[in-house]
């Protein structure tokens, strides 16, 4: 609510600029990593995915956290509202991603080693 957040006057804009700084730095790091693509990160695999991709995804979630918490004011909402939003989306989206990526990998295997010819 509007008056809930007004009690901390000066700190709000300071917090905003801090978050902007964090988001900028993370984006710059992502772009630099994406351009130079360090060999030890692209050649190391963790749970079937390149380490570099893990880093990108973790940094993205890190950015998403700051956008949701600071910019969308989730940090000042009640615990109930926050959990209703965050856990609902995390649960449904993880499930969707899991099931679709598994299926995609399976179809790749069928194309590669099964009896389906698709490039002729």
């Amino acid at each position, binding site marked *: *609510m*509007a008056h*809930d*957040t*007004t009690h901390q*006057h000066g700190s*709000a*804009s300071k917090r*905003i*600029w801090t*978050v*902007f700084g964090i*988001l*900028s730095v993370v*984006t*710059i790091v*992502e*772009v630099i990593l*994406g*351009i130079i693509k360090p060999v030890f990160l*692209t050649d190391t695999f963790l749970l079937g995915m390149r380490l570099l*991709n893990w880093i*990108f*995804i973790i*940094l*993205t979630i890190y*950015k*998403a956290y700051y*956008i*949701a918490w*600071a*910019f*969308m*004011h989730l940090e000042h*909402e*009640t615990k*109930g*509202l926050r959990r*209703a*939003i965050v856990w*609902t*989306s995390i649960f*449904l*989206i993880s499930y*969707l*991603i899991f099931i*679709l*990526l598994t*299926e*995609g*990998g399976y*179809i*790749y295997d069928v*194309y590669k080693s099964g009896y389906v010819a*698709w*490039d*002729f």
Partner: protein
Amino acid sequence: MEATVVRTGTEGKTWGGGNEPLKASYGKMMMWFFILSDALTFSGFLAAYGFSRFKFIDSWPIADEVFNHFPFLHGVDAPMYYVALMTFILIFSSVTMVLAVDAGHHMKKGKVTTYMFLTIIGGLVFVGSQAWEWKNFISGEYGAVTTKGGNVLQFVDGEGHRVGLADIAVPIAGDRVEHEANNGIWFDEGKDLPTYSLEEVKAGFIQNEDLLIRTQQLTEDGDKTILSREESLLKLNNEAVGTVEGANLVQNEYGSPLFADFFFFITGFHGFHVFSGVIINIIIFFNVIIGTYERRGSYEMVEKVGLYWHFVDLVWVFVFTFFYLV
């Protein structure tokens, strides 16, 4: 008004209505409902993109090679710089939005106006940038040859640099001319002629001993496979069926057409959100100017559109990662 209010005798009780257990107003709650459902729509798109990519995991286009343009730097390979700039513009417009919300909390009309204005400008610049990205993607850069199996073959020189169809094709006289309505009585529709026909490309490829073919297949290092000269000639003679320049929903000179489809759908859907966000911001901007919220005593409306605007930014952060980085 008083007369129409029905008193139930339950005011102030838990189920008496008007309770705000989550301490958020109705409007804000509904905005969160919308955002959550919209987040699921976007994750559906992105997960479908992941599905298709996993399906063609060893032949997916490399984003760095597709999106490597930067304004005023023609022919310079600038992977991701532009999209990084777009990300900055959107994050910054998010910052001005949250500053507007903050100024609204302190009832500073002038500051809200300024920050809202900056947010709108940022949104417009972003949509414009996206249009430019689309233009580059649609018109393509080098062109490729399509195969019977629905794949594309690209051309490289001895050093592995890409070579465009324009540099390969040798003009052949007497080719088919474009058939148009004004020179045929029974004309219904005719296929558009490609800029360079397959025969012209083939003839040019045979003449230039230096040229090789690059397939969609990825090597273990994540680069595209380059065939030897003999394999290249064999592949071109046996499998090529046509030429393609640029990308659309059916063909894609960069590789799998699915890549183009998802690019158009996901960035298009996101761009549509930015566009509607700009429209909503403009409406709120004028409401701020004419003092609607000043009279109402609360700038909560700015907060609600702010939520939407940050959500658009949030989605872009994910699109950026999964389309351009990973």
